[in-house]
């Protein structure tokens, strides 16, 4: 087995037994990136020098007898999370040259645990999108089929992990942006409960919905990463004070008697038949493992999409008001006065989808429309949350598909925003309700990965990880890797046209 193919927990075992060094492991990942990333285009910024230096320090610490939860583990970070000293672009022209002066709390915690940072991964601009096609720089390609999207917005992180260009990665999930790309790339992605992970240093998109989550090769790695990044942070007043359990203790393959609900709305019209087949088979596996399966209902599911696309753009329009060309970021040079400077900076700095959402959000919040749109959406949000509250009185977890389809073709949905928005139809509700949900591979349809979504109540990460682990242990899907057979093995060259 190649070093870059290891999972985090496998690599930790080898590192702890001194069979490999962090420098060797990091170099293997950097070489792998050289080999495949010209075709995958997962990374916006690579950090080879600092990564090798961090790896060298990790080896030194280990030689001195120290250990860490992730000591010497090379990871990728979605480019909406601040890592001091390296560009954080958010996939946007407006932040193309922005270098954050501080680390996000999650980066600080991963640093303390000994992680190595390989680079920053591609994303739809400001995490707004489901395919990475809204990145201002380039589109990431799905490792299972380069003519298809990796999903989004954390598509760079998902593709990097799927193509063995990182052992694990961080993403952010506002309406499905960790789970949908995890599903489309055949890996595991977790959106923690709102408040479980500090958002300090995550560039804000929709503040009542945003949450940072891990993208990994298997459920065990997901538990390991979550354990490091979870917990209260005084710098994020929306982070929860709840203690952080050792999530790896939840990884038991025993789920006999657990009550699992299957919301019938998640199998509504529009779902690809091959996706439904794979997910139904996965549910049968859970039944065979002794779980009690029953159909249930989340009656307001169909309202999640319009509710989300009022609340998220409204919050985004306020959050993105800070990009004014004064404190940081792109500034238009040729403006007559300050008002023109604002207009031009934002006109040229933002891409089409970001502008669309700023327009939508500003409209929904504007005088005369606030009650009809924004307030109405907040009330429907209550109904959606109550659906989940009721379901979790009856069930330990809910299961269904993560995405209604497998990975779609690049260009297929980009001209039709509503069609693109529909790819998140099964993931939006969890963000509106603030609960946790995970996607893991559960089979293939036309040779492309299908994701099973397992969701739990607020702070229910342990039960979600337990069910996911039991399923994973009973099935082979997490062991399948994309062949990358269409990829060239040329000398690595920085693709100037496609990379910053």
């Amino acid at each position, binding site marked *: 087995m190649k070093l870059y193919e290891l999972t985090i927990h496998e690599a930790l075992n080898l590192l702890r037994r001194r069979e490999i060094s962090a420098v060797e492991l990091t170099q293997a990942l950097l070489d792998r990136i050289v080999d495949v990333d010209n075709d995958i285009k997962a990374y916006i910024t690579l950090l080879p020098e600092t990564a090798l230096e961090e790896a060298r320090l990790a080896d030194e610490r280990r030689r001195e007898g120290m250990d860490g939860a992730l000591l010497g583990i090379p990871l990728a970070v979605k480019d909406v999370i601040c890592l001091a000293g390296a560009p954080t672009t958010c996939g946007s022209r407006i932040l193309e*040259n*922005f*270098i954050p*002066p*501080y680390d996000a709390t999650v980066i600080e915690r991963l640093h303390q645990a000994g992680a190595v940072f390989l680079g920053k991964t591609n994303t739809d601009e400001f995490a707004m999108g489901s395919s990475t096609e809204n990145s201002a720089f380039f589109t990431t390609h799905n490792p299972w089929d380069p003519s298809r999207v990796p999903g989004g917005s954390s598509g760079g992180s998902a593709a990097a992990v799927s193509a063995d260009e990182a052992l694990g990665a961080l993403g952010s999930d506002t309406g499905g942006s960790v789970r949908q790309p995890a599903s489309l790339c055949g890996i595991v992605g977790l959106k923690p409960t*709102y*408040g479980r992970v500090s958002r300090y240093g995550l560039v804000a998109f929709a503040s*009542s919905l945003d949450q940072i989550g891990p993208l990994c090769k298997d459920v065990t790695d997901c538990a390991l990463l979550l354990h490091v990044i979870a917990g209260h942070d*005084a710098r994020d*007043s*929306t982070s*929860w004070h709840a203690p952080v359990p050792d999530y790896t203790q939840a990884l038991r393959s025993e789920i006999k008697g657990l009550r699992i609900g299957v919301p019938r709305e998640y199998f509504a019209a529009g779902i690809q038949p091959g996706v439904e087949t794979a997910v139904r088979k996965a549910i049968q596996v859970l039944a065979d493992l002794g779980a009690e399966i029953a159909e249930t209902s989340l009656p*307001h599911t*169909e*309202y999640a999409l*319009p*509710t989300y*696309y*009022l609340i998220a753009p409204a919050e985004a*329009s306020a959050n993105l*008001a800070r990009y004014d*060309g*004064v*404190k*940081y*970021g792109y*500034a238009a040079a040729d403006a007559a*006065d*300050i008002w023109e400077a*604002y*207009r*031009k900076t*934002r*006109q*040229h700095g*933002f891409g*089409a989808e970001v*502008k*669309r959402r*700023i*327009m*939508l959000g*500003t*409209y929904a919040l*504007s005088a005369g429309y606030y009650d*009809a749109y924004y*307030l*109405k*959406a*907040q*009330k*429907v949000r*209550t*109904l959606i*949350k109550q659906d989940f509250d009721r379901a979790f009185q009856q069930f330990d977890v809910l299961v269904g598909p993560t995405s209604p389809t497998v990975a779609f073709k690049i260009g297929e949905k980009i001209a039709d*925003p509503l069609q693109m928005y529909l790819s998140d139809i099964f993931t939006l509700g969890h963000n*509106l*309700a*603030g609960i946790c949900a995970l996607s893991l591979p559960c089979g293939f349809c036309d040779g492309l990965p299908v994701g099973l979504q397992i969701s739990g109540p*607020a702070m229910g990460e342990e039960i979600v990880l337990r069910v996911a682990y039991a399923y994973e242990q009973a099935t082979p899907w997490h062991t399948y890797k994309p062949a990358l057979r269409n990829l060239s093995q040329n000398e690595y060259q920085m693709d100037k046209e496609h990379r910053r």
Partner: protein
Amino acid sequence: MALTREQVKHVAELAKLGLTDEEIEMYCEQLSAILDYFVTLQRLDTDAIPPTATVLPLRNVMRTDEPGSSLSREDALANAPAAVEGYFQVKAILE
């Protein structure tokens, strides 16, 4: 509901967002289609339903007021498009 060009221009001005004529045209069409889709929400009777602004069982989060370290002036200005004598430089706002 169809948004007019004037409405789109008004919203863009509220957001301080410059738009080309083609963009105004495009957003007229796309935002109208999206808003039409939102009409589905009006089917729900929500008169007695309280709004949810946040899902957390948290209200005003307080902390003790302790001085801590902050960014140096140099760090704070490092990303500024224009800075003069330790300040952010902006266009004049007074005649």
